[in-house]
């Protein structure tokens, strides 16, 4: 599955990357990301996740062809 990150998250991860491991939920994805980059823990904790442009919660079941966006806190305007 594909992961896209935005804004300040790009200082911790590539803008867009593939997750090859078997990951079934957002919670599991979060664990994989923390494993990749433990320094991002605080920030990741503040982020929301979206799949196919809709916000989802930690229990959301992922499909291998999903595109997951990690959305840091907004700071518009």
């Amino acid at each position, binding site marked *: 599955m594909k992961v896209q990150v*935005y*804004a*300040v998250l790009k*200082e911790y991860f590539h803008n867009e990357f593939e997750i090859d491991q078997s990951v079934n939920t957002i919670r599991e994805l979060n664990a994989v990301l923390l494993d990749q980059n433990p320094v991002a823990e605080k920030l990741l904790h*503040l*982020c*929301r996740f*979206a799949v196919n*442009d809709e*916000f989802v919660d930690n229990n959301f079941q992922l499909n291998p062809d999903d595109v997951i*966006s990690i*959305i*840091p*806190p*907004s*700071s*518009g*305007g």
Partner: protein
Amino acid sequence: MTSSRLYPPAAEDSFLHISSLPLEIVSMLASAHHPGAGAVVLFSGETRNNSHGRDVDYLEYEAKESMASKMIGDILDEAVKKWRLKIAIARHRTGKVAVCESAVIVITASPHRSEAYEANRYIIDRIKHEVPIWKCEYFTDGTKEWGGNCNCQKVTGDANKHVYEWET
């Protein structure tokens, strides 16, 4: 209610409420007069030359455009219903925004002025807290910082619960 959809986006943009081009404040305002509206309120959020005591060179905005545009449209629709607005328009810019330029414009029109003012604040507050748009401050000393983030979670304990100015 589809008043919020009436404003035509620039031909170059594929998202109704997100623009990579300078916001056309004059044509947006020109499109916001309505024979049933006695009050028009416009808000323009502009780049300031300072932030937290530091000199700002310019800002750069990033958005998840598809989500952001849809969410702004939904917020406008809610405001139109809640305050029975005649017109509700909002556009947020992405990319580099110079000092004195508009990063975001919100326009509301209603029969009486109370509703136009309240709805306008509601819309901009929700956009700033909820919509996936991010600001990066570039300072004159050459440094940059992803800044001014919504910190409501520290208070509410939930990334989806915010503290809005219009509620205080």
